[in-house]
């Protein structure tokens, strides 16, 4: 079956531009997560959705970062007025959700964002 897909795979933005990153989770997966992975580091949690509800956004680094999942499936991570420190790989993950299954997450290939 299809896994988690993300688009675009690569994005180059000039500092100050807005970007939108898309995630298509595995069909039927209730939970959706966004992570940020800086070069040479492990992924760091950004935000979590259960269906369309954003239940945790404690990892978003600033108010320039915004995520939505309006119909409980596809999600978009938007970064406004991009800065060089936003350069990273943005990973999306989904899981069946509910209890411990929330943590059994399946990851997409990521979007590599480079801000110049």
């Amino acid at each position, binding site marked *: 079956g299809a896994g*988690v897909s993300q688009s675009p795979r690569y994005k180059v933005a000039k500092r100050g531009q807005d970007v939108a990153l898309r995630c298509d989770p595995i069909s039927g997966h209730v*939970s959706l*997560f966004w*992570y940020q992975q800086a070069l*040479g*580091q*492990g*992924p*760091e*949690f*950004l935000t*979590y959705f*259960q269906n369309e509800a954003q*239940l*945790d956004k404690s*990892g978003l680094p600033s108010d320039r970062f915004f995520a939505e999942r309006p119909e409980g499936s596809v999600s978009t991570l938007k970064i406004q007025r991009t800065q060089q420190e936003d350069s990273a790989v943005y*990973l999306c*993950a989904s899981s069946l959700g509910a*209890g*411990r299954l*929330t*943590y*059994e*997450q*399946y*990851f*997409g*290939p*990521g979007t590599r964002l480079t801000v110049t």
Partner: protein
Amino acid sequence: AQSVTQPDIHITVSEGASLELRCNYSYGATPYLFWYVQSPGQGLQLLLKYFSGDTLVQGIKGFEAEFKRSQSSFNLRKPSVHWSDAAEYFCAVGARARRGGGADGLTFGKGTHLIIQP
């Protein structure tokens, strides 16, 4: 808050030799534990998971891991590595969901880069 330490940044192993990658975690209760592998340009693939029960868990690609509560460790092992195992390996811990909904995401270590020598 939970944390994960992978003390080895790089490990080099000869093809056919055994492998052990170390992972230590910090968490106030028994966590959910995971190992993921990441090949260049790829997303993270789940190798194995520990929720409860038997402390020795089997995963895909011939990997296993053992949860040791007394040492707060969850080391990954493989008896004989193949050149295709060269990749970045991440240990992760998941905290129990908070009451009332919501959940912390996985907390990852910084990763161990595995190099396979022919």
